[in-house]
C-alpha cells in the first residue's frame, strides 16, 4: 500500500511539474501583457514536435536537438508576437484573446501540416528508462523535467525580483499606461514575455515527449490543464502557478487512480469553477484578478 501511495505521489508530481511549466508560460505572458495566452499548450507541444524532428528524424545529438528546439520555438513565438499580437496590443482584451486563440489553431494546423497526423514517439534521453525509489517507479525523464522545473522556478523568480526586465513586466501588467509614463518600453516587454514563455514551454515540451509522445492535436489539453493550474494557484504569482500545477497533477493522479480518469477530469474543472467563484486570484493570489 505504501509503495502505491508513493507511486501516486511520484506520477502526480511528474505530471504536476509539466502542468506547472505550462502554467508558468501563462504567468509570464500574463505578467508581460496582461493577457491569457490560450496558445500556451501549443507552445509546449511545438517543443515536443521539434525535439522529435531534430533528434529522432534528423539525428542530431540530443543536446544540440534540445537547444535547437528551444531556439526555433522562441523564434516562432517572437514571429507570432510581432505579426499577430503587437499590431493589436491596444485593442480590447477580448480581441487579443481571440487573436491568441487563432494563433493556437494556427500552431495546431501548422504542426499537422509539418509533422502529419501520426503520433510521434521520442525515446528517453537517458539510457536507463526508470528508477525505483522505495518500491515505487519513476520515469528517468521525470528527473530531467524536475531539473528544468526547478531552474525555471528560480529563474522566473529571479527575473521578477532582481531584474529591471521583470519589474518592467510587473509594472506593465499592473498599469500599462503608467508603465509607459515611467519609461517602460511595453512593446519590448511583450516581446520578452512571449519569447521567455515559449522558451520555457519548449524546454518542457522537449523533456516530456518521451513520457507522453507528441501528437499535433494535444496542445489544447495541455492549455486547459495548465490554465486550470494557473487559475487554481494564482496566475499573478510565480509560486502560485507552481503550487497550482503540482496540486492539479497530484489531485488528478490520485482521483484517476483511486476512482477513474473521467472523475478526475470532472473534478479539475469543478475546482477551476469553484476557484474563480470563491477566490478568483487563486489560492496564492495576492490581489483580486483583473477583470
Amino acid at each position, binding site marked *: 500500500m505504501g509503495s502505491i501511495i508513493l507511486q501516486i505521489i511520484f506520477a502526480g508530481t511528474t505530471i504536476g511539474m509539466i502542468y506547472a511549466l505550462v502554467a508558468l508560460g501563462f504567468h509570464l505572458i500574463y505578467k508581460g501583457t496582461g493577457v491569457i495566452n490560450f496558445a500556451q499548450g501549443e507552445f509546449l507541444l511545438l517543443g515536443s514536435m521539434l525535439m522529435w524532428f531534430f533528434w529522432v528524424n534528423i539525428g542530431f545529438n540530443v543536446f544540440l536537438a534540445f537547444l535547437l528546439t528551444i531556439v526555433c520555438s522562441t523564434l516562432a513565438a517572437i514571429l507570432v508576437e510581432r505579426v499577430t499580437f503587437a499590431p493589436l496590443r491596444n485593442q480590447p482584451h477580448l480581441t487579443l484573446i481571440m487573436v491568441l486563440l487563432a494563433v493556437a489553431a494556427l500552431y495546431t494546423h501548422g504542426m499537422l501540416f509539418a509533422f502529419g497526423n501520426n503520433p510521434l514517439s521520442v525515446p528517453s534521453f537517458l539510457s536507463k*528508462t526508470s528508477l525505483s525509489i522505495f518500491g515505487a517507479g519513476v520515469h528517468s525523464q521525470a528527473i530531467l523535467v524536475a531539473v528544468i522545473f526547478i531552474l525555471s522556478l528560480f529563474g522566473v523568480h529571479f527575473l521578477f525580483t532582481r531584474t529591471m526586465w521583470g519589474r518592467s513586466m510587473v509594472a506593465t501588467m499592473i498599469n500599462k499606461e503608467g508603465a509607459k509614463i515611467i519609461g517602460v518600453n511595453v512593446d519590448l516587454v511583450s516581446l520578452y514575455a512571449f519569447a521567455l514563455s515559449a522558451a520555457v514551454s519548449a524546454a518542457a515540451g522537449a523533456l516530456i515527449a518521451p513520457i507522453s509522445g507528441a501528437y499535433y492535436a494535444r496542445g489544447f489539453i495541455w492549455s486547459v490543464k495548465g490554465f486550470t493550474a494557473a487559475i487554481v494557484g494564482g496566475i499573478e504569482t510565480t509560486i502560485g502557478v507552481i503550487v497550482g500545477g503540482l496540486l492539479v497533477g497530484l489531485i488528478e493522479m490520485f482521483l484517476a487512480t483511486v476512482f477513474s480518469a473521467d472523475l478526475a477530469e470532472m473534478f479539475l474543472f469543478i475546482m477551476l469553477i469553484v476557484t474563480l467563484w470563491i477566490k478568483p486570484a487563486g489560492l496564492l493570489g495576492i490581489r483580486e484578478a483583473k477583470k
Partner: protein
Amino acid sequence: MKRHGILIVLLVTFIAFMLLLTNTPAPTQSIRGSKPIKIALHFSTSGWGRSFAVEELHGGLLAIHQINAAGGIYGRPLEVVITDLRSDYNYAVTVAKKMAADKEIIAALGDGASGIVMAMKPVYFEAHMPTIAPVKAGILTKENFDYTYRCLFNDDWAVPASLKLWKETLGIKTISILHTADAFGQSGGDTMVARAQEYGIKVLSRDNYAVTATDVTPQLIRVKAVSPDALIMWGYGEPIINAFRGIKTIGFNKQILGPSGIFDANIISAVPEQVIGAIIADAMSVDDPIDEVQKKFISAFKAMYPGETFTVYAGAVHDAANILAEALKKVVKGDESIDRDEVKRALDKTDYFGNVGHFKWSATYHEAPEQLMLMTAKKVGSEIKVVRYSK
C-alpha cells in the same frame, strides 16, 4: 450391318457433340473484358488507429497486383480507390457515402479499426456494398451483417480460446484487464469478464483508456495494487507505447498478454526492450509461418515491400482481396456492369484457404477461420522477432 452403321453415326455424332460441349467454356468465362473493376481500399493510415493500416493496405495491394499480373478477372483489371480514413468516425462515414454513391465501386476492403467499420456499416448496408474488414470485435457480425464480412477471427470466439490457451500453456490464474475504450476493447473486455471463470481464471481488475490517451499511469498503478499473474492489454495504438513504458516505470514485472495489436511495428520500434517476453494469441507469425500459404504470402510481401514490417493483418487483407477476386470470377460477364448483390451472393459461397486459415462463408456466416496460436516477442541478434511461443 446397316443398323451398325446407324449406331456408329449416332455414336460419332454424340462424341462430336460432347467434345463441342467440353470445349465450350462456361458462359461467364466465354466473354473476356478489359474494363477495370473498381474496389475501395480504405484504411486509417493516419491518426490513432494507424497501427496496422499501412500493412493492411499493402496486403490488399499485393493481392491486387498479383491478380492483375495473372490477367485480372477474365481480362478486367482490378482498379483500387485508396482513401485514408484518418481514424475519424465522421470522416469515415463521409468516405463510405462517397464510395456507396459511385456505382462503379462494387466492394470495399477496410478499415482495420472496429469502431470505424461499425460507423461505416449502415451506409454500406443501405447501398448493398459488400465490405470485408480485418476487424475482430464481435459486434460487427451480430446484426445487419448481410454485406459485412470478417477476414480476421471474431473475438467472441478468440477471447475464450485465448483464455484457454493462457491457462493451459502458462498456468495463469488471475488477470487484470486494461483495454481501449472503443468497440474492439469493450467487446474483448466484456467477453473476458464473462468467460474467464469457465477456464478457472479470476479477473482481479478491469480498466480502460481512450485511444487518444496520453497517460495510463493511474490504470497501471491500480493493476500493480491488485498484483495479478498477468496483465492483459487488450488494445492497440499509441497508448500501448505509453502503457509499456509505464509498466517498466512503475516496476510491474508480471506477464503481459494481449492481441496482436500490442506487437505492431510502431510499438516494437518505440519500446523494443519492453515488448520482449509479452505474449499474444493470433493466427499468423511473419517470423514463424505455419504452412506453405503463409510462406508464399510472406515472401511475396517482402519482395514487394522490402524492409516493411508486417503482421497477420497484412495477411488477412491479402486473403480478403483474393476472396473478392474469386467471387468476382463467378459474376463477371465481359465488360457488363457488376451488380453488388451478385457479388454478395458469390461471397456467401466462399470456400478459400488463406493465410489466416480456411474461409467458408454462407448467407448467415461471415466469420474468419478459427485459427489461433501463442506468439512472443524475442530478441534475435539485434532484431525483435515475433515467434511461436514454446515453454
